[in-house]
């Protein structure tokens, strides 16, 4: 048991192994996310029933809710990767964490924008200090802080370990921040419509949401792998397997053109 675990860890620590394996996963993830997002959005926009209170404007939850869930999952992932980075000093988790932060930040941004768009028909204003939106805004700043730190430290390994510590501090803080913001919200605005108050959803509304959620997760995984693969090539550019890979690619492309010339 311990041996298999160790071997598994060792494999994940190897950028080449990651590059080969993720290369095989990429098309599947891309296909899954494409199908889910396409089917999910058509279903959600055209076929799901209207909300009896909010009319058609509720349909923005099909973007807002998956983005908000992804924003929080990505931060959790960031912290988990951070723990592994600090404890086992794995190069791959360093790379994955660096790749994860900007995607998580854009998900948070998307959740904020859709949330505030939702506010226009619901509250008649672009921004309201709703507990959920405020927590999202804080989460966005937590992401931006991590990205700024990653960017400021030149050595990629030190940058990854420093931002791992910040991500762990952040993940311990998130429940406290969420709780305090909710507490603050009920203190100041006791009776308004809350985004958090979901009416019981009928199956026809709920299934497309699940579809969108799966699509978002697959898209997240795909873009995470894409960014990580890119980082792997940059950080491993001096190793033999990368130089071989890079030598092989232009050769296959330029060969036919050269033969055509001659």
């Amino acid at each position, binding site marked *: 048991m311990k041996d298999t675990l160790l071997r598994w860890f060792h494999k994940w620590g190897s950028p080449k192994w990651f590059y080969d394996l993720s290369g095989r996963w990429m098309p599947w993830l891309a296909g899954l996310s494409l199908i889910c997002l396409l089917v999910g959005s058509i279903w959600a926009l055209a076929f799901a029933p209207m909300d009896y209170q909010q009319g058609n404007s509720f349909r923005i939850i099909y973007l807002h809710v998956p983005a908000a869930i992804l924003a929080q999952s990505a931060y959790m992932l960031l912290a988990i990767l951070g723990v592994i980075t*600090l404890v086992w000093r794995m190069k791959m988790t360093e790379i994955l964490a660096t790749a994860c932060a900007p995607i998580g930040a854009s998900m948070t941004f998307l959740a904020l924008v859709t949330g505030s768009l939702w506010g226009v028909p619901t509250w008649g204003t672009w921004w309201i200090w709703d507990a959920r939106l405020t927590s999202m805004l*804080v989460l966005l*700043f*937590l992401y*931006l*802080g*991590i990205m*700024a*730190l990653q960017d*400021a*430290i030149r*050595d990629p*390994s*030190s940058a990854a*370990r*420093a931002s791992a*510590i*910040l991500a*762990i*501090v*952040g993940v*311990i*803080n998130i429940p*406290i*921040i969420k*709780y*305090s*913001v909710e*507490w*603050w919200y009920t*203190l100041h605005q006791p009776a308004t419509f809350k985004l958090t108050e979901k009416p019981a959803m009928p199956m026809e509304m709920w299934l497309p949401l699940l579809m969108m959620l799966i699509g978002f997760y697959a898209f997240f995984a795909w873009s995470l792998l894409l960014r990580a693969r890119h980082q792997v090539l940059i950080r491993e550019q001096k190793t033999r397997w990368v130089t071989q890979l890079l030598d092989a690619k232009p050769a296959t492309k330029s060969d036919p053109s050269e033969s055509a010339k001659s």
Partner: protein
Amino acid sequence: MHKTNTTSLAQAVGVCIRREFLLLVRRPSDLLNPLLFFALVSLLFPLGISPTEAILQPVASGVVWVAALLATLLSLDSLFRQDLLDGSLEQLLLTPHPLSVLVMAKVGVHWLMTAIPLILMAPVLGAMLYLPTQAQGVLMLALLLGTPVLILVGAIGAALTVSLRKTGVLLTLMVLPLYIPVLIFGTSAVHAAAQDLPADGQLAFLGAILSLTLVLAPLGISAALKVSVRQ
């Protein structure tokens, strides 16, 4: 071969406290500047909003807290910088004593020397912003519970950025979001007291956050310092 006898941890901590104390006393501008900043920021609000009691009184606790938050953050930027530049930080890593304990001695002295004057000054600023007298005690108590959290969490940020040339805005960006719970419970405690309501709940939350921070922050600070020095 030599037989090495290491000094006890208590002795090492005592010596570190004495040294930090001496350093801060002999460099008084580090102590004075955040205090002046605290006063100045608080006094910008009457000028920026309105000097009338009806407008200032409801925001007084928020203003004093935000100013305290920023002043604390300002004083943290230099917490480890000089130690890294003159080489004493790496020597601190090379002592046989646990870094997290030694660092707590340093941060503790920092809190004692910068936050206590700030807490003592807060009622004066509160009074100038028409904060009711019955809220002054709660303000000081809330600051007493809240400022250690601000300094401990900020010290993690300062430790992470110590090896960078320019950090002022970066440190703020990293640390300020983490200050939000303290700000919310701190201002709300004062707010409640100003309306003659009990503030025990808010103070209890601040106490709980403080205990959690006291346990975890030393580990965070020492881990961050090790990352910053070992590069």
